[in-house]
C-alpha cells in the first residue's frame, strides 16, 4: 500500500503508525509516551468507526505513505525527535484532506502532540 487515497487508508495508516510508535517507546523504556501513542491509536480506531458517512465519502489525492516512513531503529533522543517530527508532518499534511470534522480534529490533536514531543 503506497497511496493514502481514502478516508480509511489514512485512518488505518494513522492507527498502524501509532501502534509502531507505542512499541518503539516501550522498547525505549518511555512508558508515558507509549501510553500516549496507545491512547491516540484507540482514538483513531473510534474515529474511523464512528465518522464514515457516505454523504461525504470522496477520493483523496496527493498523499503517499512512503513520505512518512519512521526510522524505528534509532531510540536515541535525536531518533525520537525524528520519529515525532515525521508523525507530526503526517498529521499536519492529512488533516486538511479529510472532510469530516471529528476526524480532522483527531488528526490535528495528534499533530500538535507529536510536534510538542519533537520540540521538547
Amino acid at each position, binding site marked *: 500500500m503506497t*497511496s493514502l*487515497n481514502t478516508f*480509511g487508508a489514512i485512518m488505518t495508516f494513522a492507527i498502524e503508525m501509532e501502534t509502531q510508535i507505542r512499541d518503539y517507546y516501550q522498547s525505549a523504556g518511555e512508558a508515558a509516551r507509549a501510553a500516549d501513542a496507545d491512547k491516540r491509536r484507540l482514538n483513531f480506531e473510534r474515529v474511523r468507526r464512528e465518522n464514515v458517512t*457516505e454523504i461525504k*465519502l*470522496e477520493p483523496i489525492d496527493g498523499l503517499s505513505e512512503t513520505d512518512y516512513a519512521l526510522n524505528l531503529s534509532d531510540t536515541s533522543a535525536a531518533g525520537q525527535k525524528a520519529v515525532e517530527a515525521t508523525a507530526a508532518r503526517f498529521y499536519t499534511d492529512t488533516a486538511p484532506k479529510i472532510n469530516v470534522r471529528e476526524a480532522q480534529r483527531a488528526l490535528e490533536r495528534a499533530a500538535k502532540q507529536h510536534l510538542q514531543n519533537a520540540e521538547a
Partner: protein
Amino acid sequence: MVQKLQHYIGGAWVSSTSDQMTSVINPATCDVLAEVPVGTREDVDAAVNAAAAAFPEWRSTPILSRAQYMYRYKTLVEERFEDFVRVVVEENGKTRDEARGEVRRGIESIDFAIGLPNIAHGYKVEDISSGIDETAERQPLGVFTAITPFNFPMMVPLWFLPTAIVLGNTYVLKPSPQTPISAQLLYEVLDELDMPEGVVNLLHGGVDVSMAVMEHPKVVGVSFVGSSPVAKIVYETCGKHGKRVQAQGGAKNHIVVMPDADLSVSVKNIMGSSYGCAGQRCLAGSVVVAVGDIYEPLRDELVKQASALRVGYGLEETTQMGTVISHAARERIEKMISAGVAEGATPVLDGRNKSVEGFPEGSFVGPTILDGVTANMSVARDEIFGPVMSIIRAADFDEAVDILNSSRYGNSASIFTSSGKYAREFKYRVDAGNIGVNIGVAAATASFPFGGKKDSFFGDLHGQGPDALEFFTDRKIVIERWF
C-alpha cells in the same frame, strides 16, 4: 469447508426442510463464501408461527426493557464493527470505507430504536364531551417482515428490525440470497442477547419464500427494498392479502450542475454519488444534467476525476471502487452501456471489459461516462445499477427541471450551485423524495424518513424516522366515561 447457513427460528439455528442450497460468491475473488438454503413454505410457516407465538409476551414487555435489548445490541455490534465491515465487503464487493459507512448507518438505526421510549406515545383529550375522555393508544400489531436487497446487506435490515421490535412487534427477516452472511452475523449477535424465543427470526430463500411471507395470514406488514418491478409486485401482493406495506423501488437519480457551481468540489462529490458502491445504490447519481456553458468543462473534469479512481478488491484500503455484485450484473451493465452507444451516446470513459490485476474472475466494471446523451435514450431512462454516468445538456434551469420530472422514478435528485434562488426552486419543483443541495448522496439519516416518489416507492409510510413509528404501530381509540 464452506459454511452452510441456517435459518434462525424460535431462538435456535435450524436447517431448512429442503436440502437445496445456492452459493454465496465473493464477487471479486469468485470464492464460494457460504451455501444458503433456498427455503420452503414450511420454513416460512415455522418462522412466522414462532414470531406470532412470541408476540403476546413480547408486547407486554415494557418498552424500556425492549429498548435495553437494543442498547446491548448496539454495544455488541460496535465491538464487532470491523467484522461486519469485512463480511459486507466480501459478499457485496464494495470498499471498506463504503462498508464502514453502511455499518455506521445501521448502528444509527439501532440508536434511533433505543430512543423510541421518548417518542412512542399516544395522546389524549379530556372532556371531548362533558365527562368523556378520548385517548389514542399506540399499540404494536404483530409479526412484521422485511425482504431486503444485496446492496446494503447490513444496513437495510437495521432500518426496520430494531424499530419494529422496540415498538413491541416480532420479526422475520428475509435477506437477499446473494448477501445473506451479513444477516447471519446480525442474528449471531442478536442470539447473544437472550431475547425471548421467537421475537426475531431469520429466514433464507428466494422468490418462493418471499411470496410465502407476503401471503402468510399471520404476517401483518412487509418492508421491502429492491427494484421497481418487484416493489410493485410486493405492494400489490401485500394489498391483496391485507397487509401494511412499504416497498422501496429503483431509481434514476439526476444531478443538475449549474454554471455557477464550484466545479472541482462538486465533481469530487459527484464521484462518490455516481461511483460509490460501484453505482449499486438507489441514491446513486446516474444522470448528470449540465446546464448551459458548464457542459464541456464539467465533462472534462468528470472524466479526469473518474479516470483516476482506483478500481480493485474492496478489502484493500486503497481501493476507491469495488465490484458489482455478480458476473450476471456485469454483463447486464455492459449490455446497457452498449445499448446507449448504439443509440448515439459517446463513451468518453469506457468501463467495459475492466480487468484488475490479481482478480481475473472479478465482477469489475470501470467508471463509465457517456457523453452526448439525450433524455429519450435508454441509458437516461432506465436504471442501470452500475458505475455508469450519462451526461445530458440542458439549455437552462427550467429545461433541467423538466428533464428530471419526466423520469418515471423519483427517488433522489441533487443540484450543485452557489445560487440560493436555484437551490430553493429545485427543492420546491423537483418531484423526488430525497433532495441534495451540493450533496450527491442525499441519504436520510435514521431519524428522518427515507423519501421516494413515483415508481421509486410504493406505499404511504416510508422507512425510518417518524414514518417508521407510524408504520409499526396502530392507534387504538378509546372513548371513556365513568359513572
